[in-house]
């Protein structure tokens, strides 16, 4: 509530209570009216900040004095008893307001502290996972290089080739992490643009799959793209990255031999790509959170920074589209991407 509205609420409620007081004054007497006003001030302390409440306390004291304490309709207070009563009234209202304010403040501080603790926890988890993901391949590379250089030990030719292969794999992994981090900072920098051009979605999907050869051949991949699917105006590079991350996710988290089904369709100038697998699916509690930056499913295999899916969402949203995840009834997960885009049915024409 804005501060202006808080003052208004404060004045209205006190004035209202005073009006009710005028009606019931003859029935109950002005002492009870004082309680009515005090209750109003108390109610206000629950919802408003300190200043509007102080105003309410002051205003109600003045109104009580002016309208109810004999002689009525003057600010004069007749008897000593009434003077004491007025003073007590004012003190109670004031203490009430200040106490409530202090409670509010304490709560606010608690919230801030908790938010800060959450942020610290978030960043330390992030740093842990990042430094792990970056240091593991670096350690492999340094260690293998040292070993290959060392003159002391005896290393067989076959071990040598194993080490060299590890260097190669570690470097590829490092490169993937760096690419994800760069993509994330591209997204967050805001200087990033979607360059749309005509895309043959079949070509796009197979291109993304081909980037995973030969690993992808250990999965049972099927692609369903209707012959009549139009061309869409999309950013090929960004869409390629979306599919790359989703396919990579399947390879990372499902066993070899898992089915991977990719379908594409057009619904009212929207490209729909659905990517489903027959893997274990996601833990129910995580389904809504996997697109969050740096979020990782607990106990999932190492090898990710929790950035892949948030980049998927970021790139889909950059296109004005969206991505959803659901678990399939039997087993497996399904990602559904919806991208609004201009379409061209040129490819449906028979040309000569």
């Amino acid at each position, binding site marked *: 509530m804005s501060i202006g509205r808080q003052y208004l609420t404060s004045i209205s409620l006190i004035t209202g209570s005073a009006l009710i007081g005028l009606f019931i004054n003859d029935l109950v007497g002005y002492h009870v009216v004082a309680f009515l006003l005090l209750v109003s001030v108390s109610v206000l302390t629950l919802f408003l900040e300190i200043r509007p409440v102080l105003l309410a306390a002051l205003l109600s004291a003045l109104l009580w004095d002016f309208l109810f304490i004999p002689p009525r309709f003057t600010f004069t207070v007749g008897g000593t008893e009434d003077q004491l009563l007025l003073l007590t009234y004012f003190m109670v209202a004031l203490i009430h307001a200040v106490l409530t304010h202090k409670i509010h403040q304490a709560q606010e501080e608690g919230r801030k502290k908790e938010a800060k603790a959450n942020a610290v926890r978030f960043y330390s988890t992030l740093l842990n996972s990042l430094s792990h993901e970056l240091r593991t391949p670096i350690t492999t590379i340094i260690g293998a290089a040292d070993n290959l250089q060392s003159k002391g030990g005896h290393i067989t030719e076959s071990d040598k080739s194993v080490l060299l292969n590890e260097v190669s794999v570690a470097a590829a992994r490092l490169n993937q992490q760096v690419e994800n981090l760069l993509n994330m900072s*591209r997204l967050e920098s805001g200087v990033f643009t979607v360059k749309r*051009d*005509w*895309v043959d979605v079949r070509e796009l999907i197979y*291109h993304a799959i081909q980037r995973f050869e030969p690993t992808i051949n250990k999965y049972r991949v099927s692609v369903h793209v209707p012959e009549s699917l139009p*061309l869409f105006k999309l950013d090929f590079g960004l869409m390629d990255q979306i599919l790359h991350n989703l396919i990579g996710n399947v390879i990372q988290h499902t066993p070899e031999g898992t089915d991977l089904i990719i379908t594409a369709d057009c619904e009212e100038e929207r490209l729909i790509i659905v990517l489903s697998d027959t893997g274990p699916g996601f833990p129910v509690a995580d389904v809504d959170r996997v697109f969050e930056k740096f979020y990782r499913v607990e106990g999932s295999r190492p090898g990710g920074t929790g950035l892949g899916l948030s980049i998927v969402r970021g790139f889909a949203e950059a296109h004005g589209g969206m991505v959803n995840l659901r678990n399939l009834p039997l087993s497996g997960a399904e990602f559904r991407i919806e991208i609004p885009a201009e379409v061209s049915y040129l490819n449906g024409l028979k040309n000569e």
Partner: protein
Amino acid sequence: MNSAVILIIDDEVQIRKLLTITLTSYDYKVLEAVNAKEALTLVANHPPDLVLLDIGLPDMSGHQVLRHLREWYSKPIIVLSVQSAEEDIVQALDHGANDYLIKPFRTGELMARIRSALRQTNAETTGVVLDTGDFTIDFAARLVKKGNVPVKLTATEYTLLALMVRNEGKVLTHQYLLNEVWGPSYRNESQYLRVFVAQLRKKLESDPNRPKHIVTESGVGYRFVTA
């Protein structure tokens, strides 16, 4: 034949060292330049057979170096660039680079590109019939055969295919292909290119979904590769 001289232009000593050792091990002769000024002098005094040019140089942008070089140097230039810089790559290709490689690249890829670029220099010797492994093209007869069966191509399909095949191994940008095949007013009508590339793949590739010959260069263009 591998006595070709290759000039490496890169300010990173690690990259130069890596490239020098790799290229020397494949029997190429290597020259090195650490910045644009040194590179331009070197090319003028000892023109190499091929240039590997890093786009991000300290003293002058790689694009400027490219423009300067192309005023008089006509041999292959391969541009080295970092990830996610499709615009940079397209610009470099438009300014006369023959090919590009994205860092980090694999050695096999580098050597293939160098061989292909050097081959293009001697491309005049290519015969009138080319065998891609999956199909043959007879340029004189304008005839394409898969096995022994002639493949029916439309005039536009043939023009596009012939253009790509003549530039075998070289990446051709979308705009270049549109301009050459359809004309300058079609430079931005990339939907035609998509449709015709899909048709050519369907008619010629043994698996049109996993093309081995007409290869997609993400966000840049297409490259024709023989098996």
